[in-house]
């Protein structure tokens, strides 16, 4: 970790691999400064890791990078202890949060952090890049909450790109909050909803047997992508109802 006038630079790296006997080992766990890593009890073949925010943030000017890799044979579940709060810094500089996920053949990654809350006055840019091998499996959830209860949100930009065996199957950016593109909260964008989220499911068997598209009137849809993947997108008035909607939609895919 380095701290400068501009903000904190921190990197976290998680590597999991199969132990050759049906289990998963964690040979490499590196956390620093504002992001600590805790190994927790996994279920069966799975290894579980928790990201723990040891300091508040990201604050304006901070730059966090989190990378996780499920190597061949691994089943890795990553969660977080509580929500992440994007907070304003002293000089109103933008903060960055970069997530890099890699899943090898015959491996599975469950990336299930708690929501990101965009606090009034904050300015955060999140990029998530996922690279999967042809037979890799993934469940990825991301939830964004715009402002704490009753509060105006900060500015939040989040781009998610997903590559499977070298092909880009999803490239999506959501920008919201003051200074974001005009109409972000209008009838085409979020229309006053304060929580937005998605769950991405990648399974090699979807290539031959894709899930059926479905939608829910409350504001959710299951969408098979052009590739062995399905995306659940949902909007809701708050984080609790968002999670419920995402879980309902996800259950229809199981």
């Amino acid at each position, binding site marked *: 970790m380095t701290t400068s006038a501009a903000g904190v630079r921190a990197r976290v790296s998680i590597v999991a691999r199969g132990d050759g006997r049906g289990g998963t080992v964690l040979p490499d766990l590196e956390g620093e400064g504002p992001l600590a890593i805790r190994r927790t009890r996994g279920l069966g073949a799975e290894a579980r890791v928790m990201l723990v925010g040891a300091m508040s943030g990201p604050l304006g000017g901070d730059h966090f990078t989190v990378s996780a890799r499920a190597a061949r044979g691994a089943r890795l579940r990553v969660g977080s202890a509580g929500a992440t709060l994007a907070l304003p810094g002293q000089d109103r500089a933008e903060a960055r949060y970069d997530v890099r996920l890699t899943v090898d053949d015959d491996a599975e990654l469950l990336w299930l952090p708690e929501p990101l809350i965009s606090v009034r006055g904050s300015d955060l840019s999140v990029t998530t890049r996922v690279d999967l091998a042809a037979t890799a499996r993934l469940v990825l959830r991301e939830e964004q909450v715009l402002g704490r209860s009753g509060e105006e949100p900060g500015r939040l930009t989040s781009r998610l790109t997903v590559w499977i065996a070298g092909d*880009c199957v999803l490239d999506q950016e959501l920008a919201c909050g003051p200074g974001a593109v005009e109409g972000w909260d209008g*009838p085409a964008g979020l229309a006053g909803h304060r929580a937005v989220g998605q769950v991405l499911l990648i399974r090699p068997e979807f290539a031959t047997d894709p899930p059926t598209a479905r939608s829910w009137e409350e504001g959710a849809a299951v969408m098979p992508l052009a590739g062995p993947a399905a995306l659940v997108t949902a909007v809701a008035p708050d984080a609790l109802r968002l999670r419920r909607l995402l879980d309902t939609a996800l259950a229809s895919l199981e």
Partner: protein
Amino acid sequence: MSRAALLVLADGRFPAGGHAHSGGAEAAVKAGRITDAVSLEQFCRGRLHTSGAVAASLAAAAALGVDPRELDRAADARTPSPALRLVARRLGRQLVRAARATWPHPELDELAHQFPKGAHQPVALGTAARAAGLGPQDAAYCSLYEGVSGPATAVVRLLGLDPFDATAVLARLAPALDRAAQDAVEAGQRALSDGPEALPARSAPLLEIGAEAHAKWPVRLFAS
């Protein structure tokens, strides 16, 4: 460039099938999110800066000669909704058919051959612009204007909105549309030098969710 060719391509009566689509406005009207000229304008602004900007950048890149197969894959990745991907391909196929008759060109023949089910509409539009002797800016303008005039015209029919009010909305969007066209051309140029990953990917969640619900309605006035 020929200004007259631009008018032909941009004309709402150009037989490319666009008039049957509301650009998500029908779903937004049903959900009570578009109720008047003010909410129509907000809808159009949101669309212009998200899926509209993406489509215009793809069209500009195609007009600049970026490989249509790469652009079509980039369009797929930027369109999670299968209902919207299907609509984009149908409109692309119809546009290529009309454009081949209007401005015969080997690149249009090649596109029709490569994509029998249709390439994404913006890719077809950019290629049609090339065939018509038009440039990336023309393609971007056509794409952006169609992306807001479609919903505006649809809302006149869906809500009985005064056509004068709907046209005034389009006029108020003009400065934003000018800026968006410039941005789309720059994005198209970046795609030419750095590949299609350089294209914008801005999304509008309710357009995607609304399109999926709309596609399953038993009775509807517009195809999308």
